[in-house]
């Protein structure tokens, strides 16, 4: 018997009031693969991501992690299950330092409960080490506020955080948006590094060229449901994929 996939979503339905946002969505993510999630605006990508990250409850269906059914009612459930989501604008708190962002919600403390004293020295040391490892250490102390980093550096910090907490699945929502060419390449390099160290990724981007450079497999959504889940950069052209996204291929 083969190892159970990392994440399985079976027959997920989601209604926002009377809006049917997800229709019978089935999705499987295996260990160590990068899956591109594509679809036009309103296709249901963000809703799917929010369901998988515990940010919104789904109406019906089942989610299994490593074969075990799991109930997801909050983002903490998802984080505990090893799913880390990096939203493009809301991954980090600009006024807090790099170290405090890395450990936000999972602070290292000495002493009990939420009154615990922050262990700043240990958090700074871990952060400095992590920054060196992902290659943005250059003279940036871990006490620097996130607000003074560039867009690419922020993405790198967010990815580094997911790697540090050893998340099995890292969901990246538009990680290359608003980034320059060099920074985009940097982010794509981090995504590959994450895969090479055994993490799975879901990669969402409007820019199909970026998706093609990094993913193993592409899943396309249209009108709230998955219409293709095994497009591969090796066998499909960008044009093919665009046709599936817009529904053009049906017209042929």
């Amino acid at each position, binding site marked *: 018997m083969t190892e159970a996939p990392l994440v399985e979503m079976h027959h997920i339905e989601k209604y926002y009031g009377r809006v049917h946002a997800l229709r019978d969505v089935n999705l499987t993510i295996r260990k160590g693969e990068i899956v591109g999630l594509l679809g036009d605006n309103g296709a249901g990508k963000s809703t799917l991501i929010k369901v998988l990250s515990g940010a919104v409850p789904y109406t019906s269906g089942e989610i299994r992690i490593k074969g075990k059914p799991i109930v997801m009612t909050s983002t903490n459930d998802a984080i505990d299950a090893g799913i880390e989501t990096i939203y493009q604008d809301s991954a980090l708190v600009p006024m807090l330092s790099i170290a405090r962002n890395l450990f936000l919600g999972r602070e290292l403390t000495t002493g009990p409960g939420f009154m615990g004293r922050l262990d700043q020295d240990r958090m700074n040391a871990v952060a400095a080490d992590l920054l060196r490892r992902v290659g943005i250490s250059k003279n940036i102390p871990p006490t620097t506020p996130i607000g003074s980093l*560039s867009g690419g550096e922020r993405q790198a910090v967010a990815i580094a955080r997911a790697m540090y907490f050893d998340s099995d699945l890292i969901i990246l929502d538009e990680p290359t948006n608003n980034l320059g060419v060099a920074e985009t390449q940097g982010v794509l390099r981090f995504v590959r590094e994450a895969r090479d160290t055994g993490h799975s990724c879901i990669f969402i981007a409007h820019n199909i060229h970026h998706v093609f450079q990094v993913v193993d497999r592409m899943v396309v959504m249209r009108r709230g449901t998955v219409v293709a889940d095994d497009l591969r950069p090796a066998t499909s052209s960008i044009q093919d994929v665009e046709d599936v996204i817009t529904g053009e291929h049906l017209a042929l």
Partner: protein
Amino acid sequence: MTEQGTTPTEHPPALGIVRFLIAKPEFGPLVLLVLMIVVFTSINPAFASLNNIGNALTFTVELGLIALSMTLLMTAGEFDLSVGSVFGFSPVIMWTFFNAGFLPLPAAFIVALLIAVCIGLVSGLFVTRLGIPSFLVTLGMLLVVRGSALWLTDGFPQRTWDAHDQWLSQVLVGDFYIGGLRIYMSLIWFILLASLSHYFLTRTRFGNWIQATGGNPSAARNRGVPTQRVKVTLFMMSAAMAAFAGIISSIRVSAANPNSGAGYELEVIAMVVIGGTVLTGGRGTIAGTVLGVLILRLMRNGIVLIGVPGLAYNIFIGAIILGMMALHAGLERRHNTGT
């Protein structure tokens, strides 16, 4: 990416320290405070007398206590306009229970604080669960609480002069002398709570959550920070602190006036923003707030001593607020561009 890392430009060490200090939000208020003391003292040396300082500090702390919890609440991105009403309402409750013989003073004190906590809880739930801006929620609460105080008392002050043989009133507002300086217990409370708030905000996990909640609420939520609980807790602390301050004030002036504390909410918010806390949340400083409290109170005291008509007080306060906001906005811009 490595190549384009924002490398801080090198500066000679001395210049570096100056830049470091100027970039602190507390720097502006500190300079202003020192300047005020120098100017007032040079015009009227009585300003620096022990007697005057002792008096000024006493009145300072009642508003200052509210400013401490308001700083935490504003750092989390909300504010509370009902603090002035709670300041008037809670002592009325406490003294009504005590004077009517229902409860001994310590029990009445606890009950008054608990009712205040409930007021904060309701405000907090309205803001977080219903998503109504805190401006509107606490404006409504301001009227409800003030109205309750007036209705309960028919608008008449409750007497508190039975208080002086009570140990509780000694603990809250008793006084003692250090040399020639008369120190009130309320000042000790203020110093204690200010230190505690500072520690709380900068050194604890909850403090980190407060800053994250105000700085980027959705990021905080995504990381599993219970932002709604953080805000509700802070609304409850804010109301409890207003009640505590109001009770101290009622014992000091020997009357629980249902009208007292009117307008305090705006003065407290002014103290907090002068100190460098950002109105929209994310960054707050207790040290700055203490400076802001001292600036506004010594200004009130000083301009009278140097002979400026007392009615002109608001002109100076308004000018200070505008000046400090301009300074903080400038620092903020520099901060965001990373220079």
